[in-house]
Structures are given as C-alpha cells and as structure tokens.
C-alpha cells in the first residue's frame, strides 16, 4: 500500500532527529546570546562628567506611539557638576506594559540620554513592577548591557552617504520632465509602489480638511 510506504518514509525522516543534537536550551539557566542591536528594555544615561544626560526636552514623550513615557519637566536647575543652569527632567516614567519597543524614543533623543538594553526586565507580580521609574532607569545604565542603538548612531546610519550614489531610474517626480541627455531614460517604472495615483474624486476646492 502506498500509505505504508509513505508512513515508512515519514518514520525514517523523523528518526533522523534522534541522531541530531537538541535544538533547545534550558532557559533561564542558559540564555542564548542576543544580537548587538537587540532591544529589550531601557536605560537612562549619565554624561561623562556624571551629570544626567536627559534635558527633559519631551521629544521621546511626543514621538512615542503608545504614549508610555511620562515626563515631569523640564525645569531649569543648577547642575551639581558644572554649576551652570541647565534643564532637567524632574521625573521620568516608562510603562513597559504598554511599550511596543519601536525604538523611536531612542532615535529622537538629542542627547542620547535614553537607550535600550539587551536584557529584558524581570517579570513581576504587580503591575507597578512593569513601570520603570527614574531610579530604575538610571540603575539599568549599570546593571544591564546596552544595545547598540542610540540617537546619534541611528541618525548617522540613516544619513545620506558622503559619496552621492546616483539613482539609476527615473523617479515619479521627474517622470514628466524631458531631459536632453545622451541616453534615453529607461522606461519610467514606478519606484515607490505599484501605484497610479487615483483621480481625486473629492470635489475641487474641497481641501479635505478634518471635519
């Protein structure tokens, strides 16, 4: 019977696993190494002179899609390190139970104050255990390994390269421009999507404001 032969073949296939080593590890005794850029939790950093890096600019609070960051501030205070007046954040809480780990807060920080860490937070028994308070965030600076990404690095990675690389195709913006170049431009295939912008059925003059 064909089924018997298939069954036999399946059995032999599965039997090969007996010869292979196991693919699982005994978590949490053994933790697989995480990538350099792995993002799991957060830390607030100090600057080299020991002063808090966070200036309370509220950029991370504004960009967060889930609104998990709550900052009290900014207030202008004398710095205990340099003596000059600068702005600080009075309180900074981050609710890990709602965070979606999008890394946008890290990207927008102008002073690289908030970064992500490679180790996650330990699970807790109360909901409050999931809210990272300011002391916990500053403690994470020391007791958790940091991820690679911080504001400066992420912005640098997305910056235009020093050497301009010419784009080899006609962009949508230039599709209607005829250039007197030696080579005829390649056929204008849509670059940023398979889209022909639909004729706008909205009545002319209706600027589509939010009603």
């Amino acid at each position: 019977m064909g089924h018997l032969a298939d069954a036999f073949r399946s059995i032999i296939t599965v039997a090969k696993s007996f010869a292979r080593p196991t693919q699982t590890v005994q978590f949490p005794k053994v933790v697989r190494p995480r990538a350099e850029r792995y993002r799991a939790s957060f830390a607030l950093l100090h600057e080299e002179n020991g002063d808090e890096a966070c200036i309370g600019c509220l950029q991370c609070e504004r960009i967060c899609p889930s609104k998990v960051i709550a900052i009290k501030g900014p207030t202008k205070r004398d710095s205990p390190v340099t003596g000059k007046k600068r702005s600080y954040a009075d309180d900074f809480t981050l609710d890990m139970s709602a965070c979606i780990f999008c890394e946008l807060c890290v990207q927008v920080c102008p002073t690289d104050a908030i970064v992500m860490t490679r180790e996650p937070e330990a699970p807790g028994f109360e909901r409050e255990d999931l809210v990272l308070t300011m002391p916990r965030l500053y403690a994470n600076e020391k007791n958790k390994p940091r991820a690679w990404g911080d504001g400066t690095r992420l912005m640098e990675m997305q910056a235009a390269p020093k050497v301009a690389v010419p784009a080899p195709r006609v962009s949508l913006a230039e599709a209607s421009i005829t250039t007197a170049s030696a080579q005829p431009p390649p056929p204008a295939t849509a670059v940023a999507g398979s889209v022909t912008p639909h004729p706008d059925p909205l009545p002319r003059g209706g600027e589509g404001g939010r009603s």
Partner: protein
Amino acid sequence: MNDFAHGGLYGGLIITVLMTTTAMALWFERKMAARMQSRVGPNIVGTFGLLQPVADVLKLLQKEDITPEKADSALFNLAPPLGAIAAIAVAAVVPFSPSVIAVDLDVGVLFLLAVGALGVLPVFAGGWASNNKFALLGAMRALAQSVSYEVPLVLAAMVPVILTGSMKLSTIVEYQATHHWLAVWPFFLGLPAFLLFMLAMLAESNRIPFDIPEAESELVAGITTEYTGMKFALFYMAEYVHTLVASAVGAALFLGGWDGPFAPGLGWMVAKTLLLFASVYWVRWTLLRFRSDQLMALCWRRLVPAGVVLVVASAVWVIVFP
C-alpha cells in the same frame, strides 16, 4: 491454590504492574517524542524527569471535578471508570510468563476480543452524556470507528487461533515456543496478520493516524471535552493501558510471548510489549490523521478483505500442512 485466589492474586499483581508501567510509559513517550522533535522533554521533575508522571497525576487529582448542568450525570460519571475497567480487564488473560497469568481461560482470545469491544461503550456514553456538540461528534466518530475496526481485529486474531488450533492464550504461546513465532513462520500469513492486528489495534485505541474521535485540532478534545480532573485522568490512562495491553496481546499472539532464544520468561514478554508500544507512539508522533470517511473506506475496502483472505489462507494452510 484455587482459581479465585490465583486469579485475584495474580490479577492484582498485574494491575499494579500495569498502572506503574503506564506511568512510566507516560514519561517514556514524552521523552521519545521530545527527541524526535529535537527537544529535551521533561527534565525538571526528578532526574531526567522521571517523576513527571507523578506530577501529572497529582495535578489532575487536584483539579475541580465539574459535571455540566445538563449532562446525564449518571452516565457522565460512570463512563471513565468503566472505560478504564474494560481496558484493564483484558490483561487478565495475557500470559506474561509460563507461570504468570491471571486467568487462563480456554476461550482467552474470545474473552479479550469481547471485553476489548466493551470498551467502546463507555467512550460513546461519555461523549453523549456530556451534552456538548464537540463531544457528541467525537462519540459518533469513535463508535463508528471502533465498531468497524473490530472486524479486522477479529479476523487478524483468528489467524493465530487457526494456526495453533486453540483459543487458549497460553497454548498459543507455547505453540510458538516449540515451533516458530507466528510472525516468522509462516511469515506470509503471520506477518500480514500481525500488521493487520496492529493497524486495527491502533484504530481501536484511537491512536494516530486513527485518532479522529479525539482530534484536538478539530474537536477541542473530542469525547473528553467536558471531563476534568480524575475522570479525565481515567480516560487518558485508559488509552495508555489499552495500548499497553494490546501490545502485550500482539506480542503474545504473533511474536511468541515469553519465548526467546535464551532464558525464556517475563523479560522477553516485557521487552516485546515495550517494543510494540514504542512503535505505536513513534507512529503517533510522525503521521497525520485520516478523516473519518477515509478511515472507514480503509477499513471496509482494504483491511476486511485482507483479513478474510488471511483467514481462509490460514485455514487452507492448516489443512494442507497439519
């Protein structure tokens, strides 16, 4: 000693050993399945996870015992123990060694087929009495499947009876001890009958690829959907016991029972039973399941004619070569 005392003593012994072996079989199956899937399996509770069955039993014992409101509570509560009893009772006639057999009936094969078939009723009763559509569907499928696969099971069990001329299981094993194992000679009768027996046994105990009555992915838990706690544990255990005992029966009928090249006795029986048991679970963790109408087609169109041919052929064989 008289028959009752003998039966009671050995029966109790066999039941105890059976229960312990079932617990060990739980562990063995999980470890084997894990290795087949490149995992480790239970290894926290006790060294190598050996106490995992104990933990499972304790967990099931402390669960709340729920009887659905509109369920037929008499049948609902009776079904699991009856199912377990039907599974265990078959072990009474299996010869584990020349001296260890609880009740050596003259009609041993008939007894085990009949009592094994009784195990269908509690399954159906449990599913019907649950007042749950998933359980009802599972019960219907279980009934159809079990009743249908009785026929190839009986036909396959007839082959050793015809070849050895007796229904007494100890006689069958002794015949195999003095002549050849029936799966070895006549292999063209014994081996197909053995395979047929194993397939029918898979279907009787609702094992993959015939486990459509308890198909988790289709019917949540099939017949055991509404069962919790110890009642669920009894159903669950009844499956394992059924498989174990059926493996023992298969070993006795076709593989020579306690016979072996050297030191015949209990050890060989245990080894063969465990071998068959392991192969049943190997198949379980490898294959997908049949749909119920494909199951039925397989039974009535392939297995039953094969069984009939085998019975007739073995009758011819016995006449030609007494």
